[in-house]
């Protein structure tokens, strides 16, 4: 692996509600800089939890306990004096469900910039908003209606709007939680293309349910199963020469026997082959 932008050291996340569940069990990983790392695995195996624990977003839920550490550029994310909002500015997050803030298209992108007071003048803000909307290939579609509510866009456009909003505060790392799973194939394809174009500049960690998507997009692949790290490798070795028996089964599509299937969309080759973008 090349330079690691983000690493986890023995990271474990436990939900301590009525029933104690260890969602992530001591995972140590390196996410290389300016590459896209895909996290795959069956539903409910801790993918999203792992992702959210990278920028401490899981902390908005009560009853979560965390051990181990995450470091960004060598600095700890948990053992730090840095205020959490400042940290989350450096590690952006895009949720699975395309979510427009109750603001205009323009203000959706300007949201983070305004909060952090990054732009001195309106002209500078205009420039930044435009350049990030261009970056996610949304500018042409919305330039004549920037004042209309973000919610009036299609879900695919909203998801690209979300990307623009996250990118606008210039994070080092972008966390994407199954960002194409709620989209129709065409929109998913557009979002994928956008991610493709972004990975040269950003370190991206993307949870995905689609093996095909991982194959197309990822540089590195991490396979998580029931909260445990099974295998992490570069995309070619991962799919062509899986080291672990369970990875081999998962890649071949014969799903692990213990898997309680609560989602049909989950990375079976049959669904993957008709999934977005092909």
């Amino acid at each position: 692996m090349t330079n690691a932008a983000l690493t986890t050291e023995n990271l474990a996340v436990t939900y301590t509600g009525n029933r104690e569940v260890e969602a992530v069990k001591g995972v140590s990983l390196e996410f290389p800089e300016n590459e896209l790392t895909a996290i795959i695995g069956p539903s409910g195996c801790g993918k999203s939890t792992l992702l959210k624990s990278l920028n401490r977003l899981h902390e908005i839920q009560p009853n979560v306990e965390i051990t181990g550490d995450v470091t960004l550029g060598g600095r700890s994310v948990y053992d730090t004096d840095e205020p959490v909002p400042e940290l989350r500015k450096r590690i952006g997050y895009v949720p699975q469900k395309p979510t427009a803030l109750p603001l205009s298209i323009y203000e959706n992108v300007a949201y983070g910039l305004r909060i952090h007071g990054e732009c001195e003048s309106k002209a500078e803000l205009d420039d930044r908003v435009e350049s990030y909307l261009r970056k996610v290939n949304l500018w042409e579609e919305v330039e004549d209606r920037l004042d209309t509510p973000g919610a009036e866009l299609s879900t695919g456009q909203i998801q690209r709007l979300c990307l623009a909003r996250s990118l606008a505060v210039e994070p080092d790392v972008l966390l994407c939680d199954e960002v194409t799973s709620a989209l129709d194939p065409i929109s998913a394809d557009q979002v994928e293309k956008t991610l493709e174009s972004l990975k040269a500049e950003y370190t991206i960690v993307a949870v995905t349910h689609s093996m095909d998507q991982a194959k197309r997009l990822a540089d590195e692949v991490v396979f998580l199963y029931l909260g445990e790290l099974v295998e992490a490798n570069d995309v070619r070795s991962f799919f062509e020469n899986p080291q672990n028996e369970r990875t081999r089964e998962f890649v071949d599509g014969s799903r692990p026997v213990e898997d309680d299937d609560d989602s049909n969309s989950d990375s079976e080759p049959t669904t993957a082959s008709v999934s977005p973008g092909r």
Partner: protein
Amino acid sequence: MGESMESQESNARGGRLGRRLRIERLSSYWLGGAGYFAIGLFVLIVMSLVYQSLPLLSEYSVVQMLTSSNWDPAQNEFGFMPAIVGTIYVTALSMLMGTPIAILAAIYLAEYAEGRLKTLVSSFIDVLAAIPSVIFGLVALIVVVPFVGNYLAPAVGSSATGLGIFTVSLVMAIVVTPFMISLSVESLEALPDELRETSLGVGATKWETIKLVLLRAAGPGIFSAILLGFGRVFGATIVPAMLIGGQTHVPSSPFATGQTLPTLIVNDFGELMSLPLTQSALIFVGLMLVVVVWLFNFAAMLVRRRLQRRWQY
């Protein structure tokens, strides 16, 4: 043989299906009927109020009655001004006191309180909302009235017994705030977590997220909650009747005694109903109450729809 069994089976299935479809039709009829009944009831109430108000309206001009401040039914003087001003005073003061508290408390409960504390506080708020308002009136007579009369009114340089518009407003604020809190909490909690994650995910603080995103998204719900509170204060009868002191002039200050439209009805109903014009006047007061509440609900619905369509939450 086999064929007949099959047809029997299909008959049975047809019978069962037929029955299910009949029930389906019936249920939609009577549910529709219930809906029309509600509309019919409202129309009937308004019509009978209008009809009973006609004797008054045929003798006096509406404008003159609404602007006259002389209320003396025994002398056939029907000026609604004092009651209208009293109602506006009470409603405005209560909402001014109750709304900010309700919104802040709702934010605390929905976004900050956790675990057992949250359960405890919400259950107490629900209990408060369920207490009959006559109890609030009673307690207020013992506690709030002396407090206002002995301390608060003198402190702002006015002398009062403690009964009056301010006392009513304070107590009504206490009565409706729990309602507004629980409704506002509901609309905040109904928001998807993605909104919070999205905002926090670009580095917003919790308070920024609440102020810029959540309050806006929950706006229609909170707005309805406040309007429901408004409706309750506007139509409140027992608390004003117990605490407002009853006086037929236009109130001079918030600490003055006064009357509201509903207290006008309850105070004069028994003794003066024998005078036909007075009865008609009181029914006209009822008509005003219904019309104002209806107009407000209608306007609220329009505003809520607009907001909802705009932000889609």
